[in-house]
């Protein structure tokens, strides 16, 4: 019924389709396991679905006057002007990190009020530096 050429073509076509489907399913499966969801402090306080073992990103404003640097960590409050969450972090912050400015932190929740960040990201398109930081830096350098 089918000649050899058609059969060959059909086999190749079916093989390629199966491979493609496997590849796409595999890609999306991996994708689902590896995405980082982004929450605001209000969303965190509302939902119970966040697994404490999953890495997530939270974002909002760094609350004015909330940044505390101690011997071994940095602590600050991220707010969306409705709810707040305390973030603790070890390491250097990006240059655009500042009080009253937007911030994104990546890490895990300890509980609904406390977030342990592994990485801090800040928006890049900022052309402004709060005068307090500048003053403080100058003072420290003396």
């Amino acid at each position: 019924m089918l000649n050899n050429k058609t059969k060959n073509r059909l086999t190749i076509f079916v093989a390629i389709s199966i491979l493609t489907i496997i590849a796409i399913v595999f890609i999306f499966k991996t994708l689902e396991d590896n995405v980082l969801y982004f929450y605001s402090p209000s969303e965190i306080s509302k939902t119970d679905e966040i697994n404490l073992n999953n890495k997530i990103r939270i974002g909002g404003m760094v609350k004015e006057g909330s940044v505390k640097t101690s011997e071994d960590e940095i602590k600050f409050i991220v707010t969306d002007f409705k709810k707040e969450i305390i973030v603790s972090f070890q390491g250097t912050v990006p240059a655009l990190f500042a009080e009253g400015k937007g911030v994104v932190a990546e890490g895990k929740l300890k509980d609904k009020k406390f977030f342990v960040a592994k990485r801090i990201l800040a928006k890049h398109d900022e052309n402004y530096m709060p005068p307090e930081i500048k003053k403080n830096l100058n003072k420290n350098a003396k």
Partner: protein
Amino acid sequence: MLSNIGIIFSSSALLSSLILIYFSIVELKISGDKISQKIYKFSLFKLIFSLSSFLTLIAGYVYSDFSINNVYENSHTSKPLFYKISGTWGNHEGSLLLWINILVLFSFLFLVLDKNKNKNFKLLTLIFQNLLISIFFIFLLSNSNPFAPVFPVPSEGNGLNPILQDPALAIHPPLLYIGFVGSSIYFSVALASLICKIDSRSLATTLKPWVSVSWFFQTLGILVGSIWAYYELGWGGFWFWDPVENSSLMPWLLMTALLHSVLVLERKMGLYSWVIVLSIMTFTMSVVGTFLVRSGILNSVHTFASDPNRGLFILSFLLVMVFSSIFIFFRYAPSENKNYKIFSKEFFILLNNWFMIFFLAVVLIGTLYPVFLDTLTGAQISVGPPYYNFILAPFLIPLLFLMTSGPKHRWISSDFKKIFDIILFLSIISFVIIFFFIKESNLLTNLILLFSIYLIIQTIFDFYGNLKNKNINLSRIISHFGFGLLIFFISINSILSLESNFNAKIGEKKNLGNYVINFKKLETAQIDNYKSVIGHFEILNKKKSTIENLKPEIRLYNKPETITYEASINSNLFSDTYLTMSNISDTNIFNIKFQKKPFMNFIWLSVILISLGGVLKFFKIKRQI
């Protein structure tokens, strides 16, 4: 003043390009095998006008002519001359003008250099090129005019974002654009050869030099971008799977696929339609890349200026481009007979293409998935490095293996040589020795190491073997050797890297395993257009009892008022020591990030070796012609 001159130059370039389209269409119908002088003349005019408009913008930057809005927004009189010039393409409008200039230059070079005898084929290629040029000039003049005047004329400019004031970032966009825009030539060539029914051999000879040149520049452009990210972003990594990095990688993967499949095409063994599809896809991906970066649709370290209108323009352009090429493809695609024998060289090249397409799919899905999810469900997500590493790493093993064994096979033959030979034996021994030093427990990483060593040793043997035969395919050997090294050193680097974050006061000493970090003092300095706070650190390696001095900086730029943290990197042959510091609250406690990054220089070197293959190939083609 300069603003008007610039607009006149770019409008004239647009006009010459439209005239060229008209002349070319007229000439298509005239028989004869020579392209007339007037087409050469107008192409030259277009090139001169276009270059002059770019030089005008550069002049505007050099002389700080703030009557041009673009200069006012992105420059400042106190900026060093070098960064005044590089600031020209550090913003959207200027970089678009650079983009167009490279497009114009490439079209001109194609007209002058391409030796194809078919007149209509060349004319059609030029028509497609000039259509692209016209569309982008119209976009430039209507939406993103770099010469837009500002009135009243401000006395001082806003300055350039300090993280862009960097030598690597001054050459990064031009390199990358040569790669991106170079691919427009294969797009036009592909469409033109479909319509003119060019045979596969001359299509291959036409494409080859352009593919190797743009691939070379694209590789270097990506490298320079990575080096910049490594020392400027302060995270100590060199590849973050950031959407913008991905959009430069995607055309690269396609160019790599094309680079390989052109070899098959050249020997008249099919793949004609496939090469056409790849050529169209490569330029499409370059435009997608431009769209992703410029529309601001993606959150990334690069999107400092974005505008939905731009996105809309590029998106509609993209749709028109893709649909018209699909139409042309189905209208003109030739039927061809494919019969491949398994284990012949062309079979392996086809496999290479499959890998490249798979990698492209992975990167494309990872980059676009967050955008789709956001549009469809409103959920905000980001796709991080674990996705890419998890999915791509296992596939490196067969890829490395195929790169090792593939080139051993001859064209159109199907004898299967045995794979257990002296080279595999040597590789296993070297792997065992290395394993003894690093003691890595992850099976996957070990396999990647083993197969990259296998590839490295095989290419070294190939080099000696071919040296004797005098029939040397140096470009393939060097590029594959470089790729083997790259994977090898990236793996070793990820295994042996150390990172430590802590806070410290001036005068404090920290004990971290093998290292003692001493924060000795702080000093300030006033340099050109910024003020610097410099930390003096002394790092003692207890094992080797060596001392390194590192000076990370906090810089306060005055125009625009910005703060940047400059990493201090002590780069030795085998290992980099990386230190950044920041200070955020009202205390004298500084945040420190300390890293040991082994073999960074070898990673850069491997990429240079890979790109070197492209140059060698280019010169080999030149010699053949």
